[in-house]
Structures are given as C-alpha cells and as structure tokens.
C-alpha cells in the first residue's frame, strides 16, 4: 500500500486557497485558513464535528462563498469567490454524505444524470445513458441492476451508486464526504484502488472520514482543522492515529475495555433460544445478563440489524422462543417490546431515530408522554421540561435552547438526543445499532462512556457495529454473525482486533 508521498512526484498545485474566512451569524466558522491540493494527490481533511471541515468543503465546491479577502487559485484562474458553476467547470465533483441520489429513478439514470443535465442537449439518449452507467460501475468493479430504482437498494449499494455517479464526469478533483460509512471492507478496498487509479491519471482526491485507520492507509497529506483554524498540514507518513487524534481534539484518549464487575448470574435480561426468521437469521441462541455489554459484529448483510429489529418487535421471528427478564415475549410489536423494557437506537438516526424538524425537547420526551399526563389527561409541560433539562445535563448535549430543531445539532449531539429519548424509558435491554456512525472521535468516546455508565448501573446492552474496535473496546463479549448465524464468540479481555478480523475474513470467503 502506498503511504506517504515518496512514490508520487508532486506536480503543480491543482487548487490553492489563501485567507479563507467564513462568518455565519454570530459564529466564525473559519479563521484565515490556507489550503492547497496537488493534482494526483490524495489529501485528507481531518477534524472533529464543528471544526469547519464541511464549511471548507462547501467553499471549495462552490456551494458557499468565502468572506471577502480570499484568494482561490485553480490552474491559471484566480477567484475571490467561487460559484458552483465555476467549480463544476474545473471538474470538482462531490460525493455528498447524504448521497444526494434520486430514490424514484433507476440506478442507470442516477449515475448518468450529471451527463443528462449538463451540456446543451435537450433530448435524452437512453443508449448513451446506459453506456455511461455501465462504464462508471465497471470502474469500481460493481454491476448493480441498471433498471432497479435506487429506493429499493440497500444503503451500501446506494453509496456505490453515488460514487459511480461522481466518476462519470471529467473529474479533476473528487471530494468525498465520509464515503465509506456503510461499505464493507471489500467495497472499501475496491473504492481505494479506484482512487489510486484516478490519482495516477492526475485526479486529486479530497477525503473526509471519521475512520482514522482509513485515512492513514491512503492519504499522501493530511490537513487538520480544529475550531475553524488550520492546525497544520502533515505528510501522512509522519503521523499515526494517536497523533492525529491528538491534533484533532487537543487531548489524548485511551480505550479502557469494559469488564463485567459482577458474575453473569440471576435472571438473564434477554434469553433467546433457536430464534429464527425466514430469510433473515437462523437458530440464534443469545443470553444477556444485567450489566453486560454484548457486541455483535460481522459483515453487512449478516443478519445483525434484522436480529435487532426482531428483538424490538419490528420484524417478528418465525420460530424459536425469547424471554425478557424471565417473561416469554412474542416479539410481535414495538409496543410490547417497549413495555417489556426494550429500547432500540436505530442504525439510521436521521430517518428512523429523530424527527429532525421538531425541537430537541419534543424529541427527547417522545417516548415518555404517557407517563407525564395530568389528571385531566393533558400533558404535564413542566414535568416534561424538567426531564428534558435533566437529560440535556446528564448527557451533556450541547444546545442553544431545548426548543431549537434537532436538525441544527451536530451528529454527535443528535445521537445523544436519541440516547436520551430511550434512556428516559428506563430500559432493561438497550439495543444500539451502529451508535457512532458518522460521529467524530471526541463525540464517539463520550457516547461510549455514556453506554458504559448505563451498563454499570445494571442495564443490559447490545451493541451492533461494523467497527470491530468499537465492540471490542466497549463490550465484555463479542459475537460474530455471518449469513444469519452466530458463528463465533469472543471474550473481549483476551482478544485482539486482528483475531476477530481474521476470523470474519476467514468465514466470509
């Protein structure tokens, strides 16, 4: 693997920016930031949420304008302000974090839409559109069904469509905002090899990712931002994950593995025997005791999420038995699961976990409205307000006011709102499906501490995650799922990340 820039000769700068300032009402998002990217370079932009990363990206691709005084040089052209159209003309393509796809259109049309909408053609050549789509997918070695609607694809496949789409144009600078969050290792490897190919052709790539390991293996240089200021630009070979984390956050954190204080005894919170769901998972035996944090990992499509949905009553199993706190449950409805003390934080917090346009307080109290009724059956506003303040305080949610909309929060704070909403129900079993996807390093570890604190108070927790490190360092036991079955169990105190990765890779073949 290429790391560092030793093997690449730096040609001219593709883009360079000086004196980038951006002030939003009341907040200075960027202070005098300089940035440059060479043709054919893989550059990473690192920083925690709120560091100004996204603002800088928006300025580079022309969606936002920099404040007066900026100089932006692309090739021979010099701009003080860059428009989206200018950026597109210079071949600056973006893969957005929200993918920005059209769910109602087919894979083919989504990939070729850039070509359809640009230029002066008024009519569509479906034949050409097909060729473009096939060629784009061939570049990253995939072949999704062209005529399938994007809405019917899995998240990972949608991400592949978004990547293919950016590869169709005369791309000179490819900007990727968290491109790999939903991809499996195999797909990530394929994507990385395409990026390297592109770089050989002189295409520059600017990467934003929260997965530190990923950054290190591919990048030539890393620019670190913190609180809107540029901390520095480093050769990737001079820096390791530990140092990068320090540069990004200003502090060092250390993982302390979770160990179970008590014995696994008494009534298990969850006990499943031979739980099966046709076409989803098979013969799941799973017992979780109070105070345990059990991790489930495995490739996407291993049935982990489906199992979590079943335990929460969203996906009724076809056979097998299950007890919660010793009482048998049918797992037929969410209401039943909630009344038994099960809580579930879904994988996709934006679409399944939050009402984005509603206020923080309304989101938090959503699950406990029934417990806060006055004698007339009306909502007890004061009681609810106290609850909100209690959780905002306890989970250290950074908000300007409880009545501002959830969508104004950063990813980490949004996830805290989701956690608060469920902690408010006093669950005995807390299921978390990829709880820190798209959340930066600092926020991530604070969410992990919240989870550990809950388990120490006796809650049973089930964490599902793609990231082996996440389950390994936060759980006392780790289960591996593959093809709908639990194929292995590891005690986290005596296992390393590599052990589990090797085990998964072995079974995935």
């Amino acid at each position: 693997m290429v790391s560092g820039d030793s093997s690449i000769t730096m040609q001219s700068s593709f883009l360079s920016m000086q004196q980038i300032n951006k002030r939003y009402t009341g907040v200075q998002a960027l202070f005098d930031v300089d940035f440059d990217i060479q043709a054919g370079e893989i550059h990473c932009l690192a920083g925690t949420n709120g560091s100004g990363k996204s603002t800088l990206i928006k300025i580079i691709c022309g969606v936002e304008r920099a404040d007066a005084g900026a100089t932006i040089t692309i090739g021979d052209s010099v701009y003080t302000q860059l428009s989206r159209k200018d950026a597109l003309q210079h071949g600056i393509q973006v893969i957005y974090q929200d993918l920005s796809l059209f769910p109602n259109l087919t894979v083919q049309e989504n990939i070729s839409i850039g070509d359809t909408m640009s230029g002066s053609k008024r009519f569509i050549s479906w034949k050409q559109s097909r060729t473009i789509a096939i060629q784009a997918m061939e570049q990253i070695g995939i072949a999704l069904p062209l005529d399938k609607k994007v809405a019917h694809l899995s998240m990972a496949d949608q991400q592949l469509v978004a990547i293919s789409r950016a590869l169709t144009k005369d791309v000179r600078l490819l900007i990727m905002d968290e491109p790999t969050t939903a991809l499996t290792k195999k797909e990530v490897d394929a994507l990385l090899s395409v990026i390297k190919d592109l770089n050989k052709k002189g295409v520059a790539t600017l990467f934003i990712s929260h997965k530190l390991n990923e950054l290190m293996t591919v990048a030539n240089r890393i620019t670190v931002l913190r609180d809107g200021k540029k901390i520095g630009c480093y050769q990737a070979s001079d820096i390791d994950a530990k140092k990068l984390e320090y540069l990004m956050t200003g502090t060092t954190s250390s993982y302390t593995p979770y160990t179970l204080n008590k014995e696994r005894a008494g009534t298990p919170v969850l006990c499943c025997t031979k739980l099966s769901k046709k076409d989803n998972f098979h013969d799941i035996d799973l017992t979780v005791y109070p105070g345990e944090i059990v991790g489930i990992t495995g490739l996407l499509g291993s049935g982990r999420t489906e199992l979590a949905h079943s335990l929460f009553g969203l996906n009724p199993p076809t056979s097998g038995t299950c007890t919660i706190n010793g009482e048998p449950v049918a797992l037929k409805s969410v209401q039943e699961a909630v009344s038994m003390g099960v809580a579930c934080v879904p994988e996709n917090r934006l679409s399944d976990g939050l009402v984005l346009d509603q206020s923080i307080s309304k989101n938090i109290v959503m699950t406990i409205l029934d417990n806060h009724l006055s004698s007339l059956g009306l909502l007890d506003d004061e009681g609810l307000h106290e609850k909100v303040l209690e959780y905002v305080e306890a989970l250290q949610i950074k908000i300007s006011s409880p009545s501002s909309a959830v969508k104004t929060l950063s990813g980490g704070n949004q996830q805290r709102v989701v956690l608060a909403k469920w902690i408010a129900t006093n669950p005995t079993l807390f299921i978390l499906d990829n709880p820190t996807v798209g959340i930066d390093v600092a926020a991530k570890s604070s969410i992990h501490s919240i989870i550990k604190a809950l388990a120490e108070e006796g809650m049973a927790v089930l964490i599902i995650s793609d990231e082996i490190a996440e389950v390994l360092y936060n759980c006392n036991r780790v289960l591996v799922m593959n093809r709908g079955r639990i194929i292995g169990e590891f005690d986290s105190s005596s296992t390393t990340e590599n052990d589990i990765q090797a085990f998964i890779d072995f079974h995935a073949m």
Partner: protein
Amino acid sequence: MKRLLARHETYIFGIIVVFSIIITAINPNFLTLENAFDILKSNAFTGIMAIGVLFVLISGGIDISFAATATIAEYLTVLICLRVGGSMLFAFFSALVIGIILGAVNGYLIDRFAVPPIITTIATMNLYYGLLIVFSKGRWIYALPQYFRTFADIRVITLYTAEGLPYGLSIVTALWFVLMVLSAGLLFYTRLGRSIYAVGGDAISAKRVGVSVKMVRIFVYAFMGAMASVAGIVQALLVQAVAPNSIVGKELNVIAAVVLGGASLAGGVGTVSGMFLGVMLLAIVQNGMTLMRVPAVWYDVFVGLVILFSVGSSSWKVKKEKVGTFIDIEPLSPPMVQEGGR
C-alpha cells in the same frame, strides 16, 4: 412478464378488464365501438386536465386551482371570440395564453415564497374563481360562435351503425391522444422531462446536479395551466355552452384519477399510460353504472371504493416488498464455533 406484473399499470388494466366483463354481462351495449368512442369523447376534458395534473404531481407539487383556470380560460376566450370574432385556432391560442399566465403565476408564487403548493393553489383557486364570478355575475353563455359547433362535430374516423347513423372518433379525443403522446415523449425523452422527475425525487439533489428547480416548478404549473385551458375549450365544445360554475368542484376527481394511475402525491412517480388508465377506469365505472341502470347517486360511493381498492392494493404490494431483507442463511462450510478467540 415478471416486470409487467410489477407495474402499477398492469393492475389498473386488470381492474378495467374485470369491470368491463361484469358490465358487458349485464348490458352487452357496453362493449361496442360506439360506446367506446363515446366514453373517449366525453372524458377528453378530464383526460386533458389529468395530463397537467400528472406533471405537477411528478414534480412533487399539487394544484387545486386548475378547474378555476380552465373556467376562466373558457369563459374569457368565448367572450373574446363573441366580441371580436375569431376562429377555432384563435380560440385555442387565446385560451392557452390565459392558462399559461395563470399557471405560471402559481408556479412563481410557490417557488418565490415557498408556500406549500396546496395552500397557494387553494388561494389562487378562490382568487381566480371569485374574480370570474364577480365580473361575469355568474351569467351563462349559450350562443357560442358557429365554428365551435362545426369543430365539435368533426370526426377523425367515421363509421356507421346498422341503422345508418354516423359515429366515430371525435376530434376532441384525437386532440387528447395527441397531447398524451407529446407529453409522454416530453417526460421520457427530454432533459426537461427528466428534470421534472429529478425535482420530484429530491429537489436539493436536483439543484446539485445543475437543474434549475425554479424553472422546472414554473414550467409544470404553467403547463398545468395550458392543459387546463385546452380542457376548458374542449368542455365548451362538448357542452356547447359556457357556465362559470360547471367545472369548479371536479378538481379532486381529476387528481384521484391521476393517483389511481400510479402517480404519487409524494412526487417523482407517474406515467402518461398510467394516468390514461386511471382516467379510463373512473370513466368506465361511471358509464357502466349508467348502462347497468344504477342510480347516479351511487356513483360517488363506487368511485370511493374503486380508488381505495386500487390504490390500496398496489401500495400494499410495495409495503410487502419492503419488509424483510433476504439473507442467505445457509452456511457455506460447516459452522465453526470458536470459544474465546485464539
């Protein structure tokens, strides 16, 4: 075959076939060419408005004001034709100008002030219709220019009944068909057409790939106005009189027909063929009830049931598809359970 079954259109077509069999069993007069031509003629008015509604729905909007637009275009055009004279061509031209202006006003307001389209168009419906009633004082116009009558009688295909009476494919049906073919082509083969689907699918994403969302919005509402105005003239041709209050109130039936044809109120989805089948299904229910001598008061009840059943069955199918992903749960090699790692 499998792909055909997955299409919404196939379901609606199936329901039309079932209804036709039932109606024919009770009254064989239903399944005659004469009746078919008659249905196609009397529904050209609804069908042409439905084309406009289809465009608006695909773009993710909705329009309630088109019946008012159609009435104004119809009323003003006939007034102009009576006062200053003209021709059929002039009548269509004049109506189109009025319709496009009124529609574009909707589109501009919706885009400029970001008011939800349903509110905007309810407001403009009241405004347009109210002004018409104020200035026309609700007066009907009976004496249409002679060319309205001659034009309405044109048949593109003429056949004769056993008794020697002429019947055939009316010019208004032909007009409806031509408009449908052109619209289908526009939606499927032009950049503008695909932009409408893109905006309906996700307006922000559309902006990011360089679609002018504003122009698309103004276009669809102006196009809706154009279709409404043509429909207004067709209505005058069919009825040979103009009443300020005859069209308003039919909006929801037209929208229902388009939704029945597979368009989604959430935007991004819909086809001209589906819309045609949706219009025909409601038309056949109405026509069949007359032929089966069911009292007309039952019509609304049946329409309600038909919409519930058709839309419900196809949405239910989509819902079923979404639940449960498929995971290949058979192990490749014998399951190896490893305790404690290494």
